[in-house]
């Protein structure tokens, strides 16, 4: 056991590029890996069921959606549901609008939350943790009771029916992301920060050149979540936008619900198209926060 503690004590002395190369640990034998693979496959099937169901429903007729016994594979695939669904609302316009919101939100959330998280983790000042609890506390207030005063506030400054209520707050730190990044920043070796301080580095420099590069996985998670949350948000656009020219994809999905009737195949086809970019994005970016972290230039 003492080896563990010793290795930790030695850690800062190990060149960081070697650490990077060794990040991935292999804890299991070959047999263990096979078992793990089978377990993962089994549960993936459970988790994939809804995706399968979404796609299959998007290819059904309305009658097949609720047929009993359940239709697991339609007799005739209704590919025409897709072009039909995308004609129900101005898909390209809404997609562009959604991107216009999601892109700045992603950038704003990541940058501002990282700054704030640094102030809550790598700097020590009186009252820091008290203020941090206040940040956490804002996550705990049910939104329903602040909705009306917040709307009145936004209306008062003329922001209703613009993208500003959806975008601007993200430039002022998101509590969830601040908390997440704080926890990750605290795990970075304090000795590195201390050494840099002794060498006369400013906090901004420590932040940008040591902490941020070391926290790439967490930053990627924050950026990805910010983008996805903004992309899939339907409540805030619903509250703050009323000009159809400004609507987002999630509001477009409502077009498949009428008073007494839901066009499920159309809704599912549109949902597949709306969510596909997220699946692709996730698939492409998951390497960033799960694999290959490079440590270039942190000692500079």
């Amino acid at each position: 056991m003492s080896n563990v503690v010793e290795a930790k004590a030695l850690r800062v002395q190990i060149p960081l590029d070697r650490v990077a190369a060794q990040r991935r640990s292999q804890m299991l034998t070959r047999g263990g890996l096979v078992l793990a693979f089978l377990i993962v496959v089994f549960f993936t099937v459970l988790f994939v069921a809804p995706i399968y169901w979404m796609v299959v429903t998007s290819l059904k007729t309305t009658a097949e959606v609720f047929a009993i016994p359940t239709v697991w594979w339609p007799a005739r695939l209704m590919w025409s549901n897709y072009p039909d669904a995308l004609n129900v609302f101005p898909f390209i316009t809404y997609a562009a609008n959604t991107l216009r919101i999601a892109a700045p939100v992603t950038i704003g959330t990541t940058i501002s939350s990282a700054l704030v998280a640094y102030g809550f983790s790598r700097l020590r000042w009186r009252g820091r943790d008290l203020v941090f609890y206040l940040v956490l506390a804002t996550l705990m207030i049910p939104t329903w009771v602040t909705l009306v005063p917040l709307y009145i506030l936004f209306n008062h400054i003329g922001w209703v029916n613009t993208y500003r209520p959806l975008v601007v707050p993200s430039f002022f730190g998101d509590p969830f992301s601040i908390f997440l990044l704080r926890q990750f920043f605290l795990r970075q070796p304090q000795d590195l920060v201390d050494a840099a301080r002794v060498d006369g580095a400013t906090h901004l420099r420590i932040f940008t050149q040591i902490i941020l590069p070391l926290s790439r996985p967490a930053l990627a998670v924050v950026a990805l979540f910010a983008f996805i949350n903004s992309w899939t948000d339907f409540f805030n656009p619903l509250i703050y936008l009323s000009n159809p020219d400004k609507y987002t994809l999630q509001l477009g999905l409502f077009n498949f619900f009428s008073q007494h009737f839901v066009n499920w195949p159309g809704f599912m086809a549109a949902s597949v198209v709306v969510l596909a970019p997220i699946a692709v994005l996730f698939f492409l970016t998951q390497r960033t926060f799960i694999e290959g972290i490079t440590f270039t230039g942190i000692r500079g």
Partner: protein
Amino acid sequence: MATRIADSGGIPLVDQPFRSNRWRRLRRGDLIPGLLFISPWIVGFAWFQLYPIIASIRYSFTDYNMMQPPIWLGFANYTRLFTEDDLFRKALANTAIYALFSVPLDLFVAFCFALLLNLRIPGRPIFRTAFYFPAVIPSVATAILWSMLLNTKGGLVNVALKAVGLPVIPWLTSPTWTMPSLILLSVWGIGPIVVIFLAGLQDVPRELYEAAKLDGAGPFRLVRDVTIPMLSPVILFNLVIGIIAALQVFAQPFVIFGGGQGGGGGAAGGPLNSVLMYSVQLYTVAFQQFQMGYAAAMAWILFAIIFSLSLLSIRFSNRFVHYE
């Protein structure tokens, strides 16, 4: 073991002892940079959040319907909640049960999946995407899906149960089964927790594993002695966020048990209000019954509960959480 490692290098969350005089000198100026770094949040808080928060605290002591001027009631809303309102009590109890079971369950399952998905198995990116994806599917779609998968006649889950000789279970319609169903369904949304764990697993230094292996540790010991201590700040994060989210659970019960399509106006409480959740009741009181003052009182009671539980978890975990 975990505590020993933490004790050797861990720094308590609340305040950290300065190590040397040199440090003290360096630290002196940290208040100003600290405030500068957090200034975006301070500005945003003052600008967007302070007014709504204070307004809603004030509402909680009034009769307020959002249109006409609030009428001061003193503590009447709070006393009415605790003495007269059986729906409030029911919602509070249901939510507590939900959180008590779903938070540890989700955390445990997500942790296990993160470990599995961190192994070098073929097709790993695909599996990771599959686990994450249910979290982004629109809740109306998932509600319909579950009512189809869980129904007693031809629902896949019950077909499977029947095949292995188990009785068919009325998951979403029987008052005894609605709560277990909702708790189990929460597992389905663990994607984000898994992703956060995976990110955390990336910077556990390999030499710690090597060292432990030299001591003859097997996979379970490695997880217990290295992974969990090194991941403890991330575990704490997921625990606190899990508590906050579970006690405010809204979308799933709201959509699955009514409230979505159809008329009738009632709250989405499920049969015999067996899954009437706190936030759902709060929404109903505020936006269907126009008792915003009363809803604000409910909100601040929930806030006090979440805040004390979160603080307790953070304080309690200081003994176990390991920071560099």
